[in-house]
């Protein structure tokens, strides 16, 4: 799924270092040092980007242009140490995206790679969304669905644990939708119920105590754009009824107003509760949910997104490096901690942890202390046993014995020694445990 770049340069060292830079930017590099080798490479593989040197032992990189079908490939760029008016003119007449002169600024090369990578996305079948950092398998389905439905008028309901990036996704949907209006976000759970109607639909001057001037609600603010309503199941039931009417009619009435106003808005709703459970509990109206959810997109928790956690941490560090003009990086042991931690607060918790560690680290290496003093959920290993408060004593004994036996590879004498009991005690406990299991089996069958 990596985009491919061909680097044609007779300087082996430069080609290799440019190849390394391409790898860092997520490309699969193909290094070639002659026009003839380049011909073979482009026949074998469709390239997303070709970086062409002009003076080569057997010709010029420009020779390739007349020999290959450019429609099969992506961008072209010239990198030359001997610029001339003739070659620049040839480049202008050909579909060349950039003409770089050696020695070049690596930032120029990075820009070209990123541009080509972005353009290559549709051809390679991957889906990237503005502002969304994801490379894991589990994120493919939501990314794919968003890229398909964003340009349509379909309503989208985002569900996922707190901090999984629902607002980031909503913003990406808005950007891909091509809608001209603003993106406005509102958390229905963070607003006192008595103010919610006014914040959503606006109010007229004097419509209630304190309404000293007319106020446009978020629906009006997002006209022709997108309104993101987070924690929609926290909205009072009577407002849910009115919201459904607004969605059906496309018009709102400010609090205290006589007239309705047409407000073409796309609403994206979200909840960190399972919507079906919220409906069953009477927190979310079923009719409203189905109006809001032509498509329901589930955002997975960070703990199930594999190495996305590392990708995101590096992204946050790069943002901080850019802001503070520094070059800090994660220490290797932090990478292991990132992967092992459960991230109950998901991406929001990760961003906060990275920022905290970034600001507290004095050197260039960042060491992450996770959980802000809170113990990470215990993970049982081969030589540890974890119990939660409330586990019955008999169960504690049974699990301890089985775990120690497994640790001692089934050797009952060694297990007895480890536990500080007699071998007879181990045998008795195992016999009792087996008898209880068989009784349980019989009960299940009955």
């Amino acid at each position: 799924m990596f985009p491919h770049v061909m680097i044609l340069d007779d300087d082996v060292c430069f080609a290799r270092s440019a190849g390394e830079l391409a790898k860092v930017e997520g490309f699969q590099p193909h290094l070639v040092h002659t026009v003839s080798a380049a011909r073979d490479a482009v026949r074998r593989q469709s390239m997303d980007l070709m970086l062409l040197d002009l003076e080569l032992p057997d010709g010029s990189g420009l020779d390739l242009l007349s020999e290959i079908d450019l429609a099969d490939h992506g961008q072209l760029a010239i990198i030359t140490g001997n610029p001339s008016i003739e070659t620049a003119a040839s480049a202008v007449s050909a579909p060349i995206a950039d003409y770089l002169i050696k020695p070049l600024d690596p930032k120029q090369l990075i820009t070209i790679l990123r541009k080509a990578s972005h353009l290559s996305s549709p051809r390679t079948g991957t889906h990237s969304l503005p502002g969304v950092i994801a490379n894991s398998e589990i994120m493919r389905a939501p990314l794919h669905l968003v890229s398909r439905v964003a340009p349509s008028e379909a309503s989208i309901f985002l569900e996922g644990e707190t901090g999984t990036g629902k607002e980031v996704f909503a913003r990406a949907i808005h950007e891909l939708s091509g809608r001209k209006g603003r993106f406005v976000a509102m958390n229905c759970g963070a607003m006192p119920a008595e103010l919610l109607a006014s914040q959503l639909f606006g109010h007229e001057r004097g419509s209630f105590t304190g309404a000293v001037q007319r106020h446009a609600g978020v629906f009006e603010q997002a006209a022709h754009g997108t309104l993101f309503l987070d924690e929609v199941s926290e909205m009072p039931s009577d407002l849910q009824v009115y919201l459904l009417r607004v969605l059906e009619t496309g018009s709102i009435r400010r609090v205290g107003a006589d007239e309705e106003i047409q407000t073409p808005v796309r609403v994206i709703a979200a909840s960190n509760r399972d919507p079906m459970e919220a409906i069953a509990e009477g927190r979310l109206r079923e009719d409203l949910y189905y109006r809001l959810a032509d498509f329901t997109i589930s955002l997975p928790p960070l703990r199930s997104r594999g190495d996305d956690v590392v990708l995101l941490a590096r992204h946050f560090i790069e943002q901080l490096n850019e802001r503070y003009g520094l070059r800090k990086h994660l220490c290797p042991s932090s990478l292991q901690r990132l992967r092992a931690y459960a991230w109950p607060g998901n991406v929001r918790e990760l961003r906060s942890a990275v920022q905290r560690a970034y600001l507290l680290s004095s050197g260039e290496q960042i060491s992450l202390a996770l959980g802000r003093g809170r113990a990470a959920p215990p993970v049982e290993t081969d030589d540890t046993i974890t119990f939660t408060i409330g586990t019955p004593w008999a169960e504690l004994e049974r699990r301890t014995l089985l775990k120690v036996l497994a640790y001692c590879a089934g050797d009952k004498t060694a297990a007895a020694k480890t536990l500080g009991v007699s071998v007879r005690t181990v045998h008795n406990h195992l016999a009792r445990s087996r008898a209880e299991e068989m009784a349980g089996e019989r009960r299940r069958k009955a």
Partner: protein
Amino acid sequence: MTDVETGQRQWLHDVNNAVNTIGVTVSVINHLMARGEFDHAKELAAELEAVCDRCRKLLRQPSGESG
């Protein structure tokens, strides 16, 4: 083009390539270090020393003399 001009052109080409490699390799090393990939960064730093050596030799050599 005279031999001297050809030599100068080749010398400039070689210096350009060496400086180019140094710039790009330093950028790669910075990225690798930011990712915590220190072993790979060290490998490239060793290659970088070799390119610097090549550059040093080129700069000691008068630009008209190819070689």
